[in-house]
């Protein structure tokens, strides 16, 4: 009996799959028409029939194994995008239920032909198909997935296309070498010679995955196709080719890199559109890595020099942005002779964007200079430019520099740092832009290792104070986060003398995020300086706030206690903190009272059982009968967590 029902169910699934054949045909009117003749969503009306029959059947016999699948398939055509999307996301379930055979013969052709849809649905489909190998019967049949992915790779929407290419790249690995030549490579060729730019763009990403695994004749064809796309007349395709040039070069034999890739690289690097040229800079890194040192000068350097002086700032920006990679790829000799002057120029570029990108690379560039001449190059060539950048007109440039400049001290050593870098640090600490000052302070550890922080403390303090009181709370938050680090480097005495008041002032900031960060900061300080220090310096002040008329400040006391109890240990917690907490259980503000309950729960584990039973328990029991619902709730929660019931 079950068999019969199943057969009927399958028939209905079939019907669901093949419905819409009529509309398919109407849409095969050429590419433009196919795009726009959205299928009339008559499916919505029809679907009632299938689901109705199925539901009756399921209700009668209780066999509903195919029913959900029929619903899913129907939903692939529902009017509601969300339902279609959900159904597509469950495509693997549908495939699993249909079995490998029917997935190949029915589901995939259905998807290839009838899915014309919203980009969002197509995106989900493209992603799903990348993981479909096992569902169509394993590597042997993986090529069945190519037709739907091929049409998705020609879609206009970039996101969909990229996902389709990603899936194609994934399943290319699952093809046997023979299948790769019989099925995959022809697809790549078709895409590469498509009419509309979208398919040619997609093709660019597929060459490198099939090249290593095909015969030499096919290899020659692939190289030819790539060459053609590099000189395509739409810039979109040239951009795609340029962005894949490095990747493709990596899978090519060295001789072809020299003969083919270099000429393509040179051509793309002097393209009429800067958006193409800048992508060639990226490829330059990979190509230079592949070539032997002796060929670099003739094959790569002329192009790279030209890129560093390109008339478009976008290209120069790209060079600056990739400078460390380029430096590693071309090696120490060329760096000394060519890249140093190029880097100087980028640091002095007329566009702030370029200067900022170059400034970001100062430390890495100096680090990677050949050791024998490093110091001399930095002192005579780089440092003068850096000095100019310290007083740049653009704040992004200055803050980019400030984020790396401290790193130079480890490279230059103590004496040079004191003589040359220190004045720059000090100047940046006084910069009008808070971000610059913050970047300097956040990297203090580098300098600390070399010259100790004392050298800076004179200027440091005003800078910190100013940041600590900045009108923007995010700036205040940032400086709080560096406090533990600063405290560690400045030492207890300096801290007590100068910074302690600041840390306490943050506890009564009017922004909650600052108060919260301030409590966390105190905890870290106690971890650093120890419980004794806490007992003498901060605990009295924190506990003093328990009598503040402002309930927010009274709550801050509780938050501090939550954070500090563990670091302070049992003794301080029991003797000093607990009495204050317990006393606050009589606060007239309910928020304070339920925070007392929360605090007791938090510090309970630090207390001994005697204190818990004799002091905490009665208070919690009293709070559990509070008039306020929340107080009751948190008191009960504390009682059960601390097992006091």
């Amino acid at each position, binding site marked *: 009996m079950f068999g019969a029902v199943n057969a009927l169910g399958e028939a209905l699934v079939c019907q669901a799959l093949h419905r819409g054949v009529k509309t398919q045909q109407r849409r095969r009117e050429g590419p433009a028409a196919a795009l*726009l003749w959205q299928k009339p969503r008559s499916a919505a009306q029809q679907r009632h029939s299938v689901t109705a029959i199925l539901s009756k059947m399921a209700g009668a016999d209780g066999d509903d194994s195919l029913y959900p699948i029929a619903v899913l398939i129907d939903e692939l055509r529902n009017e509601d995008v969300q339902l279609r999307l959900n159904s597509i996301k469950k495509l693997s379930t549908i495939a699993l239920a249909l079995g490998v055979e029917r997935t190949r013969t029915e589901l995939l052709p259905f998807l290839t032909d009838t899915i014309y849809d919203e980009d969002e649905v197509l995106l989900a489909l493209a992603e799903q198909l990348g993981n479909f190998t096992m569902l169509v019967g394993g590597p042997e049949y993986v090529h069945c997935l190519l037709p739907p992915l091929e049409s998705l790779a020609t879609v206009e929407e970039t996101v969909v296309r990229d996902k389709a290419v990603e899936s194609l790249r994934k399943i290319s690995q699952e093809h046997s070498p023979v299948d790769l030549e019989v099925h995959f490579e022809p697809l790549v060729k078709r895409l590469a010679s498509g009419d509309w730019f979208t398919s040619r763009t997609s093709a660019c990403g597929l060459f490198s995955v099939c090249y290593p695994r095909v015969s030499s004749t096919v290899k020659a064809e692939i190289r030819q196709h790539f060459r053609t796309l590099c000189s395509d007349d739409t810039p979109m395709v040239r951009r795609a080719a340029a962005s894949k040039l490095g990747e493709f070069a990596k899978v090519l034999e060295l001789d072809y890199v020299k003969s083919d890739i270099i000429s393509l690289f040179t051509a793309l690097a002097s393209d009429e559109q800067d958006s193409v040229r800048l992508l060639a800079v990226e490829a330059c890194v990979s190509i230079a890595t592949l070539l032997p040192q002796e060929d670099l000068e003739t094959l790569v350097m002329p192009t790279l020099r030209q890129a560093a002086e390109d008339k478009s*700032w976008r290209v120069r920006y790209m060079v600056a942005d990739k400078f460390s990679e380029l430096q590693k790829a071309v090696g120490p000799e060329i760096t000394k002779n060519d890249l140093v002057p190029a880097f100087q120029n980028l640091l002095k570029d007329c566009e702030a*964007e370029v200067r900022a990108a170059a400034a970001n690379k100062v430390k890495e560039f100096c680090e990677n200079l050949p050791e024998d001449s490093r110091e001399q190059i930095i002192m005579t060539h780089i440092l003068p430019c850096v000095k100019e950048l310290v007083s740049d007109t653009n704040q992004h440039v200055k803050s980019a520099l400030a984020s790396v400049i401290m790193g130079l001290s480890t490279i230059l050593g103590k004496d040079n740092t004191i003589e040359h870098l220190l004045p720059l640090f000090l100047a940046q600490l006084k910069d009008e832009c808070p971000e610059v000052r913050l970047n300097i302070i956040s990297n203090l550890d580098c300098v600390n290792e070399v010259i100790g922080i004392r050298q800076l403390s004179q200027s440091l303090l005003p800078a910190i104070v100013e940041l600590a009181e900045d009108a923007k709370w995010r700036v205040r938050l940032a400086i709080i986060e560096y406090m533990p680090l600063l405290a560690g480097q400045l030492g207890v005495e300096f801290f007590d003398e100068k910074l302690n008041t600041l840390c306490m002032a943050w506890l009564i900031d009017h922004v909650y995020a600052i108060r919260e960060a301030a409590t966390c900061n105190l905890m870290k300080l106690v971890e650093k300086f120890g419980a004794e220090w806490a007992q003498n310096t901060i605990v009295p002040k924190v506990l003093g706030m328990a009598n503040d008329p402002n309930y927010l400040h009274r709550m801050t006391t509780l938050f501090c206690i939550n954070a500090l109890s563990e670091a302070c240990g049992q003794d301080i917690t029991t003797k000093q903190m607990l009495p204050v907490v317990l006393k606050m259980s009589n606060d007239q503000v309910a928020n304070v009272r339920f925070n007392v309950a929360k605090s007791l729960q938090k510090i309970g584990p630090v207390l001994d059982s005697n204190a818990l039973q004799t002091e905490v328990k009665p208070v919690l029991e009293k709070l559990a009968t509070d008039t306020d619902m929340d107080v009751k709730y948190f008191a009960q929660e504390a009682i059960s967590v601390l097992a006091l019931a």
Partner: protein
Amino acid sequence: LHPLLHSPVHPLKKVDGFPRRSMRRARQRRSHSSSQFRYQSSQVELTPLPLLKDAPVAELHDLFCKKLQQCCVLFDFLDCVADLKGKEIKRAALNELVESVATSRGVLIEPLYPEAIKMISVNIFRTLPPSENPEFDPEEDEPTLEASWPHLQLVYEFFLRFLESPDFQPSMAKRYVDQKFVLQLLELFDSEDPREREYLKTILHRVYGKLLGLRAYIRKQINNIFLRFIYETEHFNGVAELLEILGSIINGFALPLKAEHKQFLVRVLIPLHTAKSLSIFHAQLAYCVVQFMEKDATVTEYIIRGLLKYWPKTCTQKEVMFLGEIEEILDVIEPSQFIRVQEPLFKQIAACISSPHFQVAERALYFWNNEYILSLIEENCQVILPLVFATLYRVSKEHWNQTIVSLIYNVLKTFMEMNSKLFDDLTASYKVEKQKEKQKTRHVLDDICSIIRHIIFHIVNMYRLGHLLNGSHHDSTHSLPCFKLKIVDTIGEETLKE
């Protein structure tokens, strides 16, 4: 080197003892932007030349040429006081050139073409500087103005007069105004300065009109710019200007439309509607779309289905724009085409009417104030009324905004007058439907209740049975039946109230 660093120190700066203040001022100055001058290695000292109008005829061309060469020198406008004399000389020369090309005949002889185009290229072609404000919003923010505008404007003016001069010979110009030139010209449309884009628009229009050989190329490159804008960067300042030019180009298309042009409509113009910054160029875009329809009515269905495909899902501001465009389209639609799209179209319009955003609903309801649209609706009342009736009826009862409610009453009244029989039928069936729905929900509730009662009955029975068989065994479920009963009671009450 940065031009600011090289410029001679201004006397005022020397006495300024507040370096911070001067730095701040320097940054403010940067809000005018230009990256034109970096390749000027050595600054040439300009000396004034004799006036063109005083020159003897024999020397006129030679002097004209010299002035063109003089105007190839670029100046630093970021430093507004640098080389004032030179700037003035160039400005005067440009003014003279403009006037001479505009007024006197016979000036433009062949040898001047390359010189003129060179002067124009040197001045206007430059990589546009990075935007001062990376999140530049053309609707909200002030655009960054081109600092060198005092000269640049005159160069553009000269170029325009040059193209418009009765002496202008396309056959000579085409040797210099080539594809590369046009490509660079198109790239300039990304300029943030609206004054510059305005000039570019007029100039490109003239180039398109006079240099026939470049037409296909220009169209293709505009395509590329748009495609990049839609699918890659979403940023290009000159979309509106390019569309404006295209509007007049489309106007001149020959019939029947070439496949290339149809493709442009379907794959470029329609997808342009998806752009985030649609509001900036929507008027021009809608104009182009309507132009296409007026040329060839058969593209109507492509257009309407395309718009429906890209209909905004969350942005009500864009939805209002789409509705505006639909009205423009319906204003000129052929009745035969209307019939082909009325169903999906009015489904969408019904959806708009039920939008909680009153501007969307209002814009859709305004369609009924348009006489031509009203006549189309009337002709197809049998199809359209059933599509929108339920929505109208429901929204008239539910909408929060009184204006919408009264607009809907007017629409309903219009329909009633159009076809009272159909209207009455629909009202009746709507009420029956409503009634059914009510009953259905009641049935569902009843069903749920009876199912729960069954379950409870079973549980209670089992519970009793368990008690009888082995009292202690079912102790853990002791409280279960009572608890469930409590739920049933509340549901039962609600059902009764209904």
